[in-house]
């Protein structure tokens, strides 16, 4: 067996170890490869940036679990920082049972950075089971669906939540979604049926599915995977809104090297395959 043929028989342990090294080394010794901000991420940033203290609140739905945390959690933190830096009011909720854990972690950290008060500047509605009924119900009366917040406080006793009746009282809905229920349900009921303005942040796996809806304007802007999160973190920092830790930007060198290595393996595998086929 010559070298070229051996390209098709690289042991999988070798592939795992080299990918692990390609990801680990840039995390320890950052290279600082540039990250270009894509127009779809910019659109979501500008949609939020055009709002201010007098705008209606923004609703963020954490429709993800710890498995998608590396991609979606940095988006949540960056969007919260952007909203609070612009003195906007924020409601947070979840369509996934594991979502509240993610949201609570961010809400313990980000509001403190901006001295925001619970009930006045932000409210955490928590998780509610039953996607269709929840989203349709919120179009009619949010307090009917969430009579109490995540901590058991009646919603009508919270200054911010008391003045939000339905989607008409929200300037934007942002769903950070890693599957179903997620952006599709929000698009189906909140946007298509009630005309809510919708921004979407998704794991990279689902990004290609959202593109057609961004093109038609049904979705205002899109953050795709860790790359989208890093773009939003860059926009938030470049515009002077926050100097906080940027975990997605930190991972971008590792992401680029990981991709490069996979491309090398694909090319090597194909070269080996073509040579073997020619020999036959």
């Amino acid at each position, binding site marked *: 067996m010559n070298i070229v043929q051996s390209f098709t028989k690289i042991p999988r*342990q070798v592939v*795992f170890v080299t*990918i*692990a090294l390609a*990801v*680990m080394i840039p*995390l*320890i010794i950052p290279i600082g490869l540039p990250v270009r901000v894509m127009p779809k991420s910019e659109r979501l940033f500008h949609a939020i940036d055009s709002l201010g203290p007098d705008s209606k609140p923004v609703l963020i739905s954490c429709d993800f679990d710890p*498995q*998608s*945390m*590396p*991609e979606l959690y940095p988006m949540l933190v960056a969007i919260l920082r952007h909203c609070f830096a612009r003195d906007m009011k924020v409601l947070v909720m979840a369509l996934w*049972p*594991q979502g509240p854990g993610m949201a609570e972690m961010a809400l313990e950290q980000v509001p403190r950075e901006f001295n925001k008060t619970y009930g006045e500047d932000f409210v955490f509605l*928590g*998780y*509610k*089971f*039953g996607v*269709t009924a929840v989203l*349709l119900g919120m179009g009619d009366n949010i307090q009917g669906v969430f009579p109490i917040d995540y901590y058991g406080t009646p919603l009508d006793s919270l200054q911010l939540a008391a003045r939000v009746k339905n989607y008409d009282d929200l300037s934007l809905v942002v769903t950070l979604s890693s599957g179903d229920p997620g952006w599709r349900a929000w*698009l*189906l*009921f909140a*946007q*298509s*049926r009630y005309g809510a303005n919708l921004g979407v942040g998704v*794991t*990279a*796996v*689902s*990004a*290609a599915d959202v593109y*057609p*809806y961004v*093109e*038609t*304007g*049904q979705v205002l802007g899109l953050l*795709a*995977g*860790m*790359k989208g999160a890093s773009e939003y973190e860059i926009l938030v920092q470049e515009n002077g809104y926050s100097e906080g*830790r940027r*975990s997605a930007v*930190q*991972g971008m060198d*590792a*992401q680029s090297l*990981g*991709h490069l290595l*996979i491309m090398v393996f694909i090319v090597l595998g194909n070269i080996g395959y073509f040579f073997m086929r020619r020999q036959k």
Partner: protein
Amino acid sequence: MMLSTDPWVWLAAFLTLCIFSFLFRDNIFYQFAEHLFVGVSAGYLIAITWHNQIYPNLVIPLFRQGNVVYIIPLLFGLSYFARFIPKIGYLVRFPIAFLLGWGSGAAIPAYFQRDILRQTQGTLLVRDMFTEWDSGLWALIILVGVICVLIYFFFSRERKGIMKPAANLGIIFLMLGFGASFGYTVMSRISLLIGRFQFLLGTWLGIIR
């Protein structure tokens, strides 16, 4: 380097390494972590369903506030279990029929709006798209792509004449779509690996900030 002193972080790191050990081969550590995950997930889901759904939406209104109307959804819910008793097995049809009817009524018009009306509208060429040359070009490519892919999936006529090259072009568009999806999938998986390494090297070992 500053090792974490939080025992939960150590536990999470241990479980992460247990799962990673599968890359070498299946072993008892991996099986332990996998079974623990399945058990915890099931327990969490049962607890959250009771506390978040059944207790506030059924137990409180029916048994604490005495709102007897809630007997109807209770009976509907219970009739799902009728399947286990063959004599009254037919009762399961009632909640299924209700859910299908309500679900279809709520979803079909919205699906039509989301996936057909607005998407068709977005594919049409209008003058506004040609205010800039690049947006016009992309709009044209999208239109050609949609038509060619639709021709590829049109099976009622033999592929000859104009149908053949159009269907072949449709395949190219499909392959480009699959390629983009696969690229994004790779990106997603690498992101998950980065997330775990950020945890191991940062939160646990304190090597990175």
